[in-house]
């Protein structure tokens, strides 16, 4: 704690500005409503409030600093970093917030880099040009999360519903609904949503445990890539590809590292998934297999039992983005510190149930209750039925049935996870596994040491890395195209 001696007038002024921020005000004024809703206990509420206050205050200190010059660059930021004893990652995280709040505008200065791979060029971020905007009223104003739903750019991850302090958001069929009578307009949903804005540069720095701005290519930052499949026969018979995802959770339960895991299981409607809290190895078997319908896994983050132990989260890239964003903004939802593993699966797109999945079934004339497995492979959507038949449609013919909201998603390989698992690049029946963080590496090494999986070098498999990079890039290119279109047409788009 500071002593009063180190206080300055500027510090007091920043405290005043921070207290004037709508998020802070809404949290103070809404304390009774929040405690009544029962999602946050008083202690958890204070943890949330004070961590948010500290970051918000640092944001205003940064803004005060930037106001001293008409334009600032990376070198200027370094001065702030040294005097305030913070790291570059934190400053970039705050800049992303200031930019989204339209308090500053940032021009990124990139350098074009050529690579030896298929004449790909990419941009490397080398500097910034930051200007403080003189806008009225010069502070952040509340924007409802409804703007994300209305603009059709919601990933359907469920994070907003999982952290709302008065529990007034529901994601039904991939579409969000806010109960305006309960909402206290704290804006936390908007703050934490991966489709309002994402501090992508600092997200990569966190993943790399690095404090330098580095390029991260088509697959995000990673330590190693393998091709692998499970040796557990119970999983082999029910899993989607190589069963590595299920094996990870299975092993974590077995070795008592987790008490629960967040994932997806089938609901009463065949092939409509629902968020699921796995509590045992048996639940791993019952929830294995991919459901291509979008699922708001993270809406279960407010489940009370999660505060009593450690847990892992299985999710698609947008889930992983929301989680990492919450970490970067020190967002203390009650179970934040209990998330010990983030298992990301690959995702090209997802479908809504009625307007997507059921229509695909119609196309091949299969009753949805007769479907035993679905798969996307070699450019086709496959449907296998209980009576042993196989149907397929080229992906090209069904892309218009995918959720339009997924068009603004840039991430194929779950770049924000500890360990990413997919199939692209590996032979049928195997998983492509990307190890991203030391935690992910530890888990993978333990799977091998305990003889749970079979693992081979990714360089030794076909079609391998070049195919994976190509498809990952195609998703980024497609996303950029849609972002540009939305910008041109003055529609709302996520700021990455």
């Amino acid at each position, binding site marked *: *704690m*500071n*002593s*009063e*001696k*180190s*206080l*300055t*007038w500027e*510090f*007091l*002024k920043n*405290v*005043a500005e921070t*207290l004037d921020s709508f998020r802070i005000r809404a949290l*103070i004024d809404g*304390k009774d409503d929040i405690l009544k809703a029962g999602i946050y206990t008083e202690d958890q509420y*204070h943890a949330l409030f*004070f961590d948010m*206050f500290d970051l918000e205050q640092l944001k205003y200190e940064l803004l005060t600093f930037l106001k001293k010059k008409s334009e600032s660059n990376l070198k200027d930021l370094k001065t702030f970093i040294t005097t305030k004893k913070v790291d570059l990652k934190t400053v970039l995280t705050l800049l992303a917030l200031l930019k989204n709040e339209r308090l500053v505008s940032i021009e990124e200065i990139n350098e074009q880099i050529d690579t030896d791979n298929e004449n790909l060029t990419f941009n490397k971020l080398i500097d910034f040009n930051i200007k403080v905007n003189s806008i009225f009223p010069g502070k952040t104003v509340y924007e409802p999360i409804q703007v994300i739903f209305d603009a059709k750019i919601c990933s359907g991850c469920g994070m907003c519903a999982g952290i709302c302090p008065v529990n007034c958001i529901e994601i039904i069929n991939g579409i969000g609904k806010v109960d305006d009578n309960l909402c206290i307009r704290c804006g936390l949903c908007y703050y934490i949503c991966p489709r309002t804005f994402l501090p992508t540069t600092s997200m990569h720095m966190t993943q790399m445990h690095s404090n330098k701005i580095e390029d991260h290519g088509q697959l995000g930052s990673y330590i190693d890539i393998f091709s692998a499949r499970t040796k557990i026969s119970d999983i082999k018979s029910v899993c989607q590809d190589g069963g590595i995802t299920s094996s990870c959770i299975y092993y974590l339960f077995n070795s008592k590292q987790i008490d629960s895991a967040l994932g997806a299981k089938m609901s009463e409607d065949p092939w409509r998934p629902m968020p699921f809290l796995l509590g045992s190895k048996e639940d791993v078997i019952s929830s294995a297999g991919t459901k291509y319908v979008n699922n708001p896994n993270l809406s279960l983050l407010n489940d009370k039992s999660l505060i009593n132990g450690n847990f892992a989260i299985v999710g698609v890239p947008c889930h992983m983005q929301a989680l990492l964003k919450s970490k970067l903004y020190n967002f203390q939802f009650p179970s934040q510190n209990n998330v010990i593993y983030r298992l990301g699966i690959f995702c090209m797109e997802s479908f809504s149930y009625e307007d997507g999945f059921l229509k695909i079934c119609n196309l091949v004339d299969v009753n949805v209750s007769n479907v035993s497995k679905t798969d996307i492979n070699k450019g086709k959507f496959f449907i296998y039925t209980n009576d042993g038949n196989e149907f397929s449609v080229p992906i090209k013919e069904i892309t218009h049935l995918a959720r339009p909201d997924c068009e603004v998603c840039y991430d194929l390989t779950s770049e924000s996870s500890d360990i990413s698992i997919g199939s692209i690049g590996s032979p049928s029946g195997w998983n492509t596994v990307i190890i991203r963080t030391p935690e992910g590496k530890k888990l993978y090494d333990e799977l091998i040491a305990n003889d749970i999986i079979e693992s081979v070098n990714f360089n030794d498999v076909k079609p391998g890395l070049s195919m994976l990079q190509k498809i990952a890039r195609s998703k980024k290119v497609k996303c950029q195209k849609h972002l540009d279109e939305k910008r041109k047409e003055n529609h709302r788009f996520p700021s990455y």
Partner: protein
Amino acid sequence: MDSFLKGADGVAIISCHEGECDYGRANMNTNKHVIFIRRLFNHLGIDEDRIQQYFCAAAEVEKFVTSVEDITSKIRSLPPLPKNKINPK
């Protein structure tokens, strides 16, 4: 907070007793804010005694006087807060 920025070293809020507010519950809402600010001051390393709320009815002249004396002595025992050097508002 505005008072502190303008150079005050402490703030006393004197209001009527619970249930006697002419403006509904304004006194108790303020009280909630005061409790919060004191907690926040603690968190920030500012002495929480710099902000006080006293409940005191219009007729209780003596209580008013002791309240003022109380905060004055509390603030006197604390060092002055930093002031805006240039151009105080």
